[in-house]
């Protein structure tokens, strides 16, 4: 289980440059699509591939593309989401830094399929240096005739520009991203209308994650059916996982969807197991997905081996499952405190709330305050139920999913680690030392299999 479709050439010297990239088969998908296929045929291959959005939501890409409105005389846009702000996620940065032309190639092929003549890469401002790498790649591609007017003599025109942001998690949400790209605050828009109908400059727009657009390259080269042969069920193809936390081998790994969770976290091919202690919990898909105890990451509540797929990771719903999300994977060892981590997560969401919707703006602040006092030995037993109540009133009551993303880590931490919260209330003196579980790990009481 080690086929690589995106990172096959990650370690080839000079792969950042056009010459080596081309020598390794780069830009074949552009030749194939522009010279031998219709735009509709490219969309069809993407549909057949079963590719799902790699930014976190997992929505079928071909379907998203087929929703794009095509009123005559109105420009259409492709916008690549390179905001990559979900904590734990650093795969797109790696891909853009290592193999920038793969993204450019995917954008040309995708823009052709969508009928876009202008495309943008919206990249988070912190990745300024990566934007320079992309700009160089675009200039190289343009000089070689892969961009600009009349590409390959086919009459198709395309320009790609890199647009840097300036630090705002919310701009990873596609409508906030479009607002930001228009030079405004990153306040998410009310949907509908969806970007496919009214997106950038009120024109039909497709917004896709970096990895999603890169995956279009092997899909067009080898055909959607070949791509769909990799993986399990509706989780087709490969996925980049950025692995961090208390593992021995942090890094970016391309896995075939369907690798077992046990193998992924413990084998030396990937995470390489725990960093000298014992695993306690896992967040497999970025900070917004539910945190699960290590045992529930390895096996479902029914005792089946869990797999790195969209379906298997969410098996059991939020009671016992989690989500594949963005692939921002991080693991906790037994020196870590779940209350401290939940407080940290919540501070993040409070800081990043755009402030439009009161449940999110106020609720994240209240949760941060309550979690701060529990973690610092000043909590009350009823605070735990209060937290539960606040998160429940945020979820589903906001314009964009940031509210849900702020609620889920709190809900899952209480669901699975309630005894650890209670310990904080009972032992205020012990938890005043910020490294309270380092010397004496918290021992969880065994739980019944069903919750």
């Amino acid at each position, binding site marked *: 289980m080690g086929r690589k479709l995106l990172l096959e050439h990650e370690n080839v010297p000079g792969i950042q440059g056009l010459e080596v990239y081309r020598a390794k088969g780069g830009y074949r998908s552009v030749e194939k699509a522009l010279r031998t296929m219709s735009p509709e045929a490219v969309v069809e291959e993407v549909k057949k591939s079963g590719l799902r959005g790699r930014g976190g939501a997992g929505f079928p890409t071909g379907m998203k593309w087929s929703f794009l409105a095509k009123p005559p005389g109105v*420009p259409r846009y492709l916008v690549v989401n390179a905001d*990559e*702000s*979900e*904590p*734990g*996620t*650093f795969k*797109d*940065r790696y891909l853009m830094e290592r193999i920038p032309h793969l993204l450019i190639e995917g954008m040309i092929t995708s823009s052709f399929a969508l009928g876009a003549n*202008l495309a943008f890469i919206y990249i*988070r*401002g*912190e*990745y*300024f*240096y990566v934007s*320079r790498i992309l700009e160089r790649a675009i200039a190289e591609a343009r000089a070689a005739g892969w961009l600009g007017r009349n590409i390959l003599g086919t009459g198709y025109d395309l*320009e790609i*520009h890199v*647009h*840097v*942001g*300036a*630090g*705002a*998690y919310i701009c990873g949400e596609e409508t906030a991203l479009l607002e*930001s*790209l*228009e*030079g*405004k*605050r*990153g306040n998410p828009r009310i949907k509908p209308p969806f970007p496919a109908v009214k997106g950038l*400059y009120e024109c039909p727009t497709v917004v896709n994650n970096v990895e999603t657009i890169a995956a279009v390259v092997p899909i067009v080269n080898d055909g959607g059916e070949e791509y769909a042969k990799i993986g399990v069920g509706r989780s087709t193809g490969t996925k980049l996982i*950025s*692995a*961090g*936390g*208390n593992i021995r081998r*942090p*890094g*970016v790994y391309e896995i075939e969807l369907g690798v077992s969770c046990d193998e992924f976290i413990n084998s030396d091919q990937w995470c390489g197991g725990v960093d000298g202690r014992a695993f306690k919990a896992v*967040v497999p898909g970025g*900070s917004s997905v539910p945190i699960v105890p290590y045992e529930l990451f390895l096996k479902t509540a029914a005792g089946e081996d869990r797999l790195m797929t969209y379906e298997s990771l969410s098996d059991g719903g939020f009671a016992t499952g989690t989500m594949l999300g963005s692939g*921002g994977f*991080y693991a*906790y060892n037994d020196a*870590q405190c779940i209350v*401290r*981590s939940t407080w*940290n*997560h919540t501070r*993040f969401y*409070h*800081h*990043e709330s*755009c*402030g439009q919707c009161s449940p999110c703006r106020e609720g994240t602040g209240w949760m941060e305050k309550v979690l701060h006092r529990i973690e610092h030995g000043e909590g009350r037993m009823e605070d735990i139920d209060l937290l539960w109540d606040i998160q429940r009133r945020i979820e589903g009551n906001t314009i964009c999913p940031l509210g849900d993303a702020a609620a889920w880590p709190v809900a899952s931490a209480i669901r699975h680690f309630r005894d650890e919260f209670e310990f904080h209330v009972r032992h205020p003196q012990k938890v005043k030392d*910020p490294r309270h579980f380092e010397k004496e790990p918290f021992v969880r009481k065994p739980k019944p299999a069903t919750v």
Partner: protein
Amino acid sequence: MGATLKAVTTTEGVAPFAFSEHALAECHAIMARYPEGRTKSALIPILHIAQAGNDGWLSVPAMDAVAAVLGIQPIEVYEVASFYSMFNLRPVGRHVLEICRTTPCMLRGGDALIAHAEKKLGIHVGETTRDGLFTLKAVECLGSCGTAPMLQCGATYHEDLTPEAFDALIERLRATTVRSNYTDR
């Protein structure tokens, strides 16, 4: 957005601002990327250029100059500048050290790095050293979780940081006279 740095909302005692010729040419090149009538899109990229040309922060005169270049109202610039965490609305040190404090970094010692930095520089998060060389910030996830703990200074990521590596970085930065900007090439 939780602003740790409060805005300076006056022009009194604040140096005037003008784009250099080179910077102005860059602004116009960026504006040309967007469709006709949509040049306001260039606002954030141009704010980065203005900040780099104004000692690392956006004063009211600097923001007003951005509004003039784009032909928009100053308030359209202020409301954007105050939303995004990379824009400093108060003067900062020559090198702004932004240490990631979000959970994945915390799991790998981000908190300890922040504590070490405070001690080494003799300031708290959000403050600037008396000599004006360093501003210390704790920021949210920078997408460098596999190489944590880490910090960003200007355009550069400093990763897998130990206390020793942090101290060595401080010495290197002390020795340079050039400001660290996000826009550095």
